[in-house]
């Protein structure tokens, strides 16, 4: 009986202690934040929406169409369209598509990018009404000069050297950057970019490829458009155009023959990477290592010395 009483008293004490602890919590400040009003200042390395940066100093588009990101992406959500300029013999970026519906925000593409062009922004508000609208094209991906400056500073990235000659590939980026954003930076800048990108979506979807290929300057755009179109028509008319042709000429956004493409891309990319003087040896590595025997490698492991 006494035992029972003791236990009852003990139980009451414990329950009382719990109730007290919970009650005293009501005098503490709430730890939650009211989200849309207060947006947390996210860490610089937060892996949010992917974007393409331009050179913060000159406004040149940083992408050199090396396709490193396209190859490293585990989800295959990046699709780059580029062609080799017949005059300069260099790759020119036509379109850059990222399917954010597929993207898992692992950030590998930003790690392999030799020119720190593709970066993770701090924007995480990407809700949209359809899957198609999650596929961002170059217009929506490219940041303005202000935003690029903001992210380069925030992430403490080394400023890229301005290119010796303004490449045509940069034009698309420049076009994006030309529309000045009034926002000073921070999330406001990121948001403004998103809004602007949405506005430009229709136009961009229609003409991005043609525009990028042709427009050396902004005013050359209209003039060059029909030319580019005819070019792509030509391309489509040649069913034979596969890996070999692609290596030399325009790499179109193909709807078929995907298997042949990567090889060509790899070749093209290799050259360009070397050109860009990066240390990444990913492209040549597979062929080299493939030759080695498994057994050899194992024996190598076993070597006691």
């Amino acid at each position, binding site marked *: 009986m006494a035992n029972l009483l003791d236990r009852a008293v003990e139980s009451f004490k414990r329950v009382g202690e719990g109730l007290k602890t919970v009650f005293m919590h009501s005098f503490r400040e709430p730890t939650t934040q009211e989200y849309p009003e207060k947006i947390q200042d996210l*860490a610089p*390395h937060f*892996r949010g929406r992917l974007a393409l940066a331009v050179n913060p100093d000159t406004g040149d588009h940083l992408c050199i169409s090396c396709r490193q990101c396209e190859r490293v992406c*585990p989800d295959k959500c990046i699709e780059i369209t580029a062609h080799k300029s017949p005059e300069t013999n260099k790759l020119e970026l036509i379109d850059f598509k990222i399917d954010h519906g597929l993207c*898992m925000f*692992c950030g590998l593409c930003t790690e392999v990018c030799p020119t720190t062009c593709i970066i993770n922004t701090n924007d995480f508000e990407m809700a949209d009404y359809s899957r198609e609208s999650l596929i961002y094209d170059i217009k929506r991906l490219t940041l303005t000069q202000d935003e690029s400056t903001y992210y380069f500073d925030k992430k403490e990235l080394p400023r890229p050297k301005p290119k010796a000659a303004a490449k045509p590939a940069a034009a698309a980026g420049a076009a994006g950057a030309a529309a000045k954003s009034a926002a000073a930076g921070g999330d406001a800048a990121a948001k403004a970019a998103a809004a602007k990108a949405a506005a430009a979506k229709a136009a961009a979807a229609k003409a991005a490829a043609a525009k990028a290929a042709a427009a050396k300057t902004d005013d050359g755009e209209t003039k060059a458009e029909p030319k580019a179109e005819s070019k792509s028509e030509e391309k489509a008319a040649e069913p034979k155009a596969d890996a070999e042709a692609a290596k030399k000429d325009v790499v179109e956004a193909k709807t078929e023959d995907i298997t042949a493409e990567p090889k060509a891309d790899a070749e093209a990319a290799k050259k360009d990477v070397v050109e860009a003087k990066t240390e990444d040896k990913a492209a040549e590595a*597979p062929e080299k*290592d493939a030759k080695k025997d498994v057994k050899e490698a194992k024996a*190598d492991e076993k070597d006691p010395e």
Partner: protein
Amino acid sequence: MSTEIKSTELKTDEMIINMGPQHPATHGVLRMLLTLDGEFVKHAEPVIGHLHRAQEWQGQNRTWFQYQALIDRVDYLSGMFTSWAMARSCEVLDECEVPERAEYLRVMVSEMNRISSHLLWLGTYLIDLGAMFGFPFYPFREREKLLDLFEEIAGQRMMFNYIRIGGVQRAPNDAWLKRLKAFTEEFEDRVDEYEAIVTENPIFLKRTKEIGILPLSLAKQYGVTGPSIRASGTDMDLRKTKPYSVYPKLEFDVHWLDKPEGGDTWDRYILRIREMRESNKIIKQCLDMLPTEGELSGKKQNAGLRVKAGEAFSSVESPRGILGCYVISDGKDKAIRFRWRNPSFCNLSVLSELLVGSPIADIMAIFGSVDVILPDVDR
């Protein structure tokens, strides 16, 4: 205390009931096929696979560099440990030296991850027991702080991709270390608070004492590891028994209970609480001992990353037990075989034995105490 009511005289029909996959307390998509005699379980069969994402298949079809980014998803509550297990296997294969600074950082973030995983377990376990609204928020509050820290150092809150083959991805800055230090200092008090509410609460004791008893021999047969078996009478903790990384340099205790006849759910609960305190101590030491300068990775992180041919099995002590990674490589850009030894998978299989004879209401108390994460089971 527990009442062993067994209806033997009155024969009634058995009822077959499907608990899950859409059940609020199965922590995801576990389906349990229960045969009930009244309120008592006669036969229980966990049916898994609803969340199968072919993680091992992906290991064979992704390059090493790509797969590193994927494996946090194997066990999303302790992503650091899955990364670490893979990194260790590959480092063994590659005979790659990991810099000391990276090792300290690995231990630090992993212990943080252990705390955050246990905190989530604590919250959800109390929800399983019916404390739906008040208490579960407190562990989540602390976990949120840890996730903020993860977000800063790794880039994301759960899918870290931080521990890499050969080292770690990024060094923390001073502000981050300061925040972590502040966290470790207040964390002890917070755990005291949890204990004041829960540990000796009479209802909690009634719900958890003397149910779900897991005898040591049974646990060994089923390959149970982690806090679940330490509650049943072994001191098997890889951090002590097969020390790896810089654990030998750190001072900490492995808590276990000498109960060969079997630990109950309350024992498993208290062990996790103690483990959180120990992890907190480890983090404190790491903060003091962390070299300020030095390499972060012994291996270059780029898309051409590959490991030498051979095979290796390495394991780490994850919050749920031994998390192992068996890798077979032929030296090419992709692995021949990735095989995960997931603690949840092994711990879950013992459930069909633990549940037999217990009433419906105890199913969740027992299942929760084993601490199973379904993505870890189904991969």
